[in-house]
């Protein structure tokens, strides 16, 4: 199970890095969302992975570490808020700057002088 969780976190992070480097606001936003999924899983795993352990104290003999759960909950909420802000900002940037590149202007294509049309 540890290996599986590690692979999932790794794959999510790789995809996130790829998407963020695309430098288009929508792709970056998806990338950041994926990165926050990876982070949340990672925090969750930091308390140790257990099977069949209770989440509530005294309900079972063995229980999962409660602190990472509290941390993950906070991180999820903050991540949502930040993503929502970025969505609004991206729409604003698209309207203000006329394109969806994070630099605010489209890179000039190699084979044309005009650059890609927006």
């Amino acid at each position, binding site marked *: 199970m540890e290996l599986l969780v590690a692979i999932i976190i790794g794959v999510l992070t790789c995809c996130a890095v790829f998407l963020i480097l695309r430098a288009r606001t929508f792709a970056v936003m998806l990338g950041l969302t994926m990165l926050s999924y990876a982070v949340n899983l990672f925090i969750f795993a930091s308390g140790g992975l257990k099977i069949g352990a209770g989440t509530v104290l005294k309900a079972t003999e063995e229980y999962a570490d409660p602190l990472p759960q509290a941390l993950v909950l906070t991180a999820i909420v903050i991540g949502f808020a930040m993503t929502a802000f970025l969505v609004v900002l991206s729409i604003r940037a698209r309207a*203000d700057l006329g394109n969806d590149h994070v630099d605010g202007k489209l890179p000039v294509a190699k084979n044309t002088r005009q650059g890609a049309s927006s």
Partner: protein
Amino acid sequence: MNHLIILPILWPLLVALLTMLPPFDQNLLLRRCLSVGGSLILLLLSLLLVIQSTDSPAQLYQLGNWPAPFGISLLLDQVSSLMLCLTSALAVAASLYASSGEDENGPFFHALLHFQLMGINGAFLTADLFNLFVFFEVLLIASYSLLIHGGGKAKTKAAVHYVILNLVGSALFLFALALIYGASGTLNMLDLGTKVATLSDTQLQLLQAAVALLLVVFGLKAAVMPLHFWLGNAYSSVSPAVAALFAIMTKVGIYSLLRVFAMVLQDAGFVASWVFPVLWWAGLLTILMGVLGVLASEDLRKMASYLVIVSVGALVAILSLGTPESVEALLYYLVHSTLATAALFLLADLIAHQRGKAGDRLVNGRKVAQPVLLGAAFIVVALSIVGMPPFSGFIGKLLLLQAVPQGSAMLWFWSVLLGSSVLLLIALSRAGSILFWQVAGSDTEARMAGSRRSIALMLLVLASPLLSLFAGPLTAWCKAAAVQLQQIANLSPGAF
């Protein structure tokens, strides 16, 4: 328990909420009074905390009375009370300056300003790493909104970079926190400090990975060399009052570096073997990059932004020495550089207003309407930033130079810092002579600065002579703060 400790967090929250409720939400004048009054009360409160923390042991405030490793705790010592005081002094100037018209661009300016103060104060007070993350996010989301407050293409463009970079930084911060929790089983700074010595080799390796990530996160916040590219555009496109408040934002990164590396992790061997050397060279390179930016700047606001980077470089380099003398020098220079750059941001805006179309660009333009006031302010600020006597920059840089031990470190630091000072002197005197002497055209449409703007500017400009006038007691106080910081590092949370 001393409940005053939590007030610097709760009071700005209350003020921010009040500004959005009737009768304040409809009346700009009331909102301005509330905002400036709120900042003044915050200043008094933090002065009270400074007095309380002086010559007395550090105090731990347990939220909800949960004991330290389980609950969240706030820590008040001399260093954190100094930072609170600096923040609220900037807040007074920023809210006063914004009250002269900048806050009309949007309804929530003052609310956002106080939300940001809440985040900054929280970050300075907290003794819990995860709580530090939460307060970082609070201050960041307020700063995102303040950055684009008023709108415009340049602001939107700078904001997109700033927001995305900081979101990636936050994700890395969380990775680091999870690694630290996995390795040591605690996120409380004091608890972590005592546990570091007992960790096994595998756990220490995990901790090293976490520290490398933290270095990137705090370096991004502080704008250290390879991570500084966002700052120039962001700081030069925001409105002046916000820029003055943002002068403390990079210092939040420096403060976090100081807390976590110099205090919490000082027992871990790897901090001395690779973290501090990395910070040392990054700091020196940051100074060089900042100076290049200052020389290449085409307007005064951009110049001020790069001056922030220069001061960050000096602070990070001196931080990496890890001795009490270096912390003393760091604290004094931090206060000086924050106030001086904030003053320069306000000054740049006043000059831009009075020069018509030329703005604060370094080109020939109309004569400023108040050459005596603005010129005198410029001379004080510029000489202070360059480090000329009798202003505070001279004493600050002297302390920095003295804190460096003899040997190759001294050779590098002295040559970089003194060389950068010469180049800054050239750049700033060039800027000053163009702005004030190379005048063309008539000054018939001269616009005088309002009294609120002048008072806000004077508050920050006069801080520099005051800092050097009271340099003796101040440096003694900073020395005591540095000693206290070292002592706290060896305490466990149960010792309070």
